[in-house]
């Protein structure tokens, strides 16, 4: 197949992407630089600098996204590793269990946590029944609740690529290292972990960027005490409605995401070189 027929095949998708995705983004970016009747303006960005509260919400979002991503890696990596060691049938069941939440609405999953973690919820009743606590532990309506909820929703995004990379690792590589006298810990860190690193990095990045735009979980499990950028954008777009200000914040969010992505690409290229 020559290059031009290849392009013909991809053209419809390209047009769709440009019209349905790229043009609206450009329009959104442009909004921040435009004031009706005035033309070009930078006042919406100046407004951001003068009242840094919106930027602080962005900082808070980055911090919570980082915590949720770390929690995700801490749970997801051992889980994917454990799944690799399972037999064929057990592995299928495990994958099904990881993927299953994808079929349940994110809203339902998020509300389910209220039943599980609430003051009168399963976990708290269990803890009190076991005599471990006297008063209910406050799991919900704080950063802990938001982190748990986000980790739950995003886990498949990390586990699936990681698991795919792990089952591709040739067992003979590990056996060769063992036959040369390497203890299990050395095999893991010198052979196994480096082979999973590209997938781990890609999955982590994906999870982190998805965290940045999370709306439902902080709104439901945060109890209004965990300000995140998409909830602020909702206020600015739907209630006030200052679309220009929202556009300026979105632009900064987009730049932050792109910078993180660029940093990842740089690391990735260095690693493969």
């Amino acid at each position: 197949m020559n290059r031009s027929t290849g392009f013909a095949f991809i053209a419809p998708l390209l047009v769709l992407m440009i019209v349905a995705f790229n043009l609206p983004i450009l329009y959104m970016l442009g909004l921040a630089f435009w004031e009706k009747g005035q033309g070009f303006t930078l006042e919406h960005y100046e407004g951001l600098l003068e009242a840094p509260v919106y930027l602080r919400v962005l900082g808070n979002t980055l911090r919570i996204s980082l915590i949720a991503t770390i929690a995700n890696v801490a749970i997801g990596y051992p889980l994917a590793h454990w799944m690799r060691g399972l037999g064929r049938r057990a592995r299928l069941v495990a994958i099904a269990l990881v993927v299953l939440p994808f079929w349940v609405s994110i809203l339902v999953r998020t509300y389910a946590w209220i039943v599980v973690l609430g003051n009168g919820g399963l976990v708290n009743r269990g803890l009190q029944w076991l005599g471990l606590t006297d008063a209910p532990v406050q799991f919900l309506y704080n950063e802990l609740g938001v982190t748990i909820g986000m980790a739950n929703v995003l886990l498949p995004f990390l586990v699936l690529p990681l698991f795919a990379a792990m089952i591709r690792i040739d067992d003979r590589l590990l056996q060769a290292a063992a036959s040369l006298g390497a203890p299990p810990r050395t095999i893991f860190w010198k052979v196994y972990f480096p082979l999973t690193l590209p997938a781990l990095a890609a999955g982590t990045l994906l999870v982190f960027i998805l965290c940045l735009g999370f709306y439902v979980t902080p709104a439901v499990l945060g109890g209004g005490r965990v300000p995140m950028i998409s909830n602020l954008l909702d206020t600015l777009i739907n209630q006030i409605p200052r679309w220009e200000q929202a556009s300026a914040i979105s632009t900064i969010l987009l730049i932050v995401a792109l910078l993180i992505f660029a940093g990842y690409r740089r690391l990735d290229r260095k690693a493969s070189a």
Partner: protein
Amino acid sequence: MKRRSFVKAAAASLPTFGILSAARAQSKEIRMIESGGLSGDSIQVGYIDPLKAKTGINVVRESPSSLGKLRALVESGQSGTTLFELGSGVVLQAKKLGLIEKLDWAAINPAAMFPEAKNEYGFGYQYFSTIMAWRKGQKEPKNFVEFFDTKAFPGKRTLPDYPHYCLPFALQAAGVPIDKLFPLDVDLAFKKLNEIKKDVAVWWKAGAQPPQLMKDNEVQYAICWSGRVVGDPAFGLNFAGGKADLSYIAVVKGSKSEDKLAAWKLYHEMSLPENQAKAAGVISYTGPSPDLDALLPQDKLWQFPTSKQNKAVQYFENAEWWADNGEAVNKKWEAFKLSL
């Protein structure tokens, strides 16, 4: 002269077809965006069903109704939606942004209405109150000084995640009487909120949250919309110091004239006290007719925002103040939320 031949004669004497079609046509179906839930059902039962029975005009409802949606409707060109529900402060904002049109009160020809409901740009159709409530069995506060006194009245609170609601209540807790609330002393209000924020478990966004949180025993006290808690034996409540507010239905800018002719008919139905009594049977909020009280179930008068005993102890929302100061206060609110 029969009506039909009169119309013909009138049509013949009109010079242009444009005016002719406007005078003649009246849509058989118009669209409305309202706030949803039981409130939407009350519009259906109270006003749309009677309109349909009388005139055959149907009104199709959608929800929810945020100001952002209205802006998107207008800026993207005529959407086919004629009526849009807005809060009292939002009517002023929408007017300033040029998103709504003037009402033709002569064409509506309403029955008697409270004056604040008869706005140039909106029909105030539903009074609602924001009040204190608690789980049955808690100590019962009599005013907002007591409500915010977390030592004497121990328990977690849930408050609205909106400065419009929280600031005036916080000022009452600081001892400001309800007739001296506006202009709001914003700094004093935030000072008070900072004192009690550790006892606020949840800042709610949706009106369904506070009753559920109280039932789950996540919180024991709430500031919430009266319609969500009255009549439920699980809750105690008090209208003292509450906020009375009015929701409006406005006309979307650029609406077709034949749709507006149908809308005036709906507005007329909304002004009739017997229809308002039907709506109040669905949700315990009240319409703008001064003659409504007599038509409501007398043993339930204490549940309604505008019954005499309740109207006297509440303050009324000051939409003008919020239109001037809302955005600045909102920034302070976001900063406050970051400090939680």
